[in-house]
């Protein structure tokens, strides 16, 4: 139990996917312009992360390891993730059209989001069990949602500020991310 808690806190605050590991930056800078979009994206990423790590860790622990096929993990994981995202999209579309409209366009983008691939690869390189993989994925998803929401709040305010012409848009977003990352360095050594 203690171990699971350490994995979770470590993933949310200390090894934050965006600020410490630089994963999922494309969506982080692309979707963090509006608070509501950022929230939908965070939920969608967390959902896909959970489903993808359950299935890939099942495949890893019960198929790849017993049959000594671990070297195939990159090819297998990317195919599993790509097809899972499609299935999730179809299911959400059929069961809850309001939810689909809220995050429909973000779901297909998550296939090429490096967070999902990175977490599934981390789960197998750390030899996590299925339960540990789920906690790891949940931590990564919560950490991503937390940071993208903070960032979008700051960027909504930044739009009103008088930034120099050359810094407008992406460069100032990078500097904001630098300050945020500096704040998160304070969590180092917490666990």
């Amino acid at each position, binding site marked *: 139990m203690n171990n699971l808690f350490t994995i979770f806190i470590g993933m949310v605050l200390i090894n934050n996917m965006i*600020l*410490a*590991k*630089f*994963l*999922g*930056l*494309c969506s982080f*800078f692309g979707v963090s312009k509006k608070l509501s979009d950022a929230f939908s994206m965070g939920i969608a990423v967390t959902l896909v992360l959970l489903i993808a790590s359950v299935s890939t860790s099942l495949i890893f622990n019960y198929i790849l390891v017993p049959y000594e096929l671990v*070297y*195939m993990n*990159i*090819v297998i994981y*990317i*195919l599993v993730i*790509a097809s899972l995202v499609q299935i999730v999209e179809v299911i959400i579309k059929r069961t809850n059209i309001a939810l689909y409209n809220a995050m429909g*366009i973000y779901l*297909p*983008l998550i*296939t*090429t*989001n*490096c967070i999902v*691939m*990175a977490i599934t*690869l*981390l789960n197998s*390189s750390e030899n996590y069990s299925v339960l540990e993989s789920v906690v790891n994925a949940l931590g990564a998803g919560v950490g991503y949602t937390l940071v993208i929401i903070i960032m979008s709040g700051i960027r909504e305010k930044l739009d009103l500020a008088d930034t*120099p*012409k*050359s*810094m*407008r*848009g*992406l*460069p*100032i*977003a*990078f*500097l904001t*991310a*630098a*300050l945020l*990352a*500096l704040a998160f*360095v304070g969590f180092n050594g917490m666990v």
Partner: protein
Amino acid sequence: MNDCKNIDNCPQAEACSPKVQEQDKKTGDKKSGSGFIKELTKGIIVVNPVFILILGLCPVLAITNTVTNALGMSAGVLFVLLGSNIIISSIRKVTPSMVRIPVFIVVIATFVTILSLVIEAYVPALHKSLGIYLPLIVVNCIVLGRAEAFASKNPVLLSAADAIGEGIGFAIALLIISLIREIIGTGKLEIFGKQLFEIPGLSEHPLIFFISPPGAFLVIGVTMAILRLAGVMKYE
């Protein structure tokens, strides 16, 4: 063609392709040699993957803490780009367009697996320092982006030139960022274990901030602003 940055969700995908085919015809009419050079040099500045297209940012920030890592990563991306562009371009006529994205992904994942196994066997130190970012080349937007926007519509030779150009453009961006970060962050420059020079004073008290994760965000933000002032990058 550059409008097709966003592969999964590109409303202009159909609109772009006739344009590309036209351009393809034009370059085909000319001597193939000049087209080759044009595709080769285009990726370095005009459509630089990092600074102009803003693609594949994760490795640009994550492994630019040392120049050695940046060089290793650039070589890896160049290999995967070249291999996947050549294969995808040569099977472009037999690939049904409905399943083209999964086909591209499998080709790219195969090359990444080859690269990962070769580096692990022959340069284990580099494999360790690149860590998770080496297998993540498979989801690097540059590789899939070039496959979709260029290799799936152009002949093999031009696609190879495009891959080399984009690979070199990526390497230049990585080199700029990693040189700034390593020189200021450690006060010296080391490439593959050989020390090239050392700045007296700075090497005793280096600004470690620059090799830490927040420093990466700062350096790339400031570099982009400077490139805009110099007129290389577009204003928003």
